[in-house]
């Protein structure tokens, strides 16, 4: 996978997290996985399609998910109900949407699919390309960004 594809997701995550929490996150060490895989308790999954296609996963602990939902809803959330899940899912939508905006500024025409939230650890998503993983440390806890994207040669040629 092209390493340049993950940077827009990290930049977008910084923008969105800073906007909802008021605090600047910190970027951890980049690593490579054979496929998209999350060991986190709550994972938001969003699809990317167009000239670049694949999957973006945003993994976090249950406690972090509650803190993110609380920050987004501007009130303390103690239960992961439908509204809290929707708030956490919207975080994934905002990060992926903002990332595709950055990709479009690099000349790539891309779109996203509505995100889904997965609860449960050790979830593997079959992907065509290896995944790049960047941990982002926030005041609400760790957010693990897992991006598996490849250029769609048919769309690029069209």
């Amino acid at each position, binding site marked *: 996978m092209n390493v340049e594809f993950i940077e827009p997701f990290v930049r977008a995550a910084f*923008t*969105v997290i800073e*906007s*909802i929490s008021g605090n600047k996150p910190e970027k951890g060490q980049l690593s490579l996985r054979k496929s998209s895989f999350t060991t986190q308790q709550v994972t938001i999954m969003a699809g990317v399609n167009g000239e670049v296609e694949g999957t973006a996963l945003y993994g976090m602990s249950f406690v972090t998910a509650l803190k993110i939902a609380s920050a*987004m*809803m501007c009130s303390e959330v103690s239960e992961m109900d*439908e*509204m809290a899940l*929707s*708030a956490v*899912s*919207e975080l994934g*939508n*905002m990060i*992926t*949407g*903002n990332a*595709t*905006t950055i990709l*479009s500024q690099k000349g790539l*025409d891309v*779109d*996203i*699919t*509505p995100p889904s939230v997965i609860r449960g650890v050790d979830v593997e998503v079959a992907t065509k390309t290896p995944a790049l993983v960047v941990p982002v440390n926030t005041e609400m806890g760790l957010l693990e960004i897992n991006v598996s994207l490849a250029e769609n040669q048919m769309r690029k040629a069209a």
Partner: protein
Amino acid sequence: MAKRILVVDDAMFMRATVKRILENAGYEVAGEAENGQMAVERYSELKPDAVLMDITMPIMDGISAAKAILDNDPAAVVLMCTALGQQSLVIQAIQAGVKDYIVKPFQADRVIEGVSKALGAA
């Protein structure tokens, strides 16, 4: 009388957030829709003063829904409210007749400014 707004977003959280922002500013939320097709139907039924519309939604996306609403009612006031800021989408929306394009994450003031200006210009 308070201006009536139709709020369209597939995320329950966003519909609730936008509703709270609008109601705090004195607007009335005429109704909600969670996809583009439902938005077109609810627009015909409710005849709101303005529509705040997401783009990435299942069944029918927000740009297609905005075009359908504006085809049926060229005087409709539609604003996009989306995480996608691609220039190509902004151009498509403006060409369809959309009055404003708000990119998420947004501040409450940005939504109120957009709705107020769009309704003032309608």
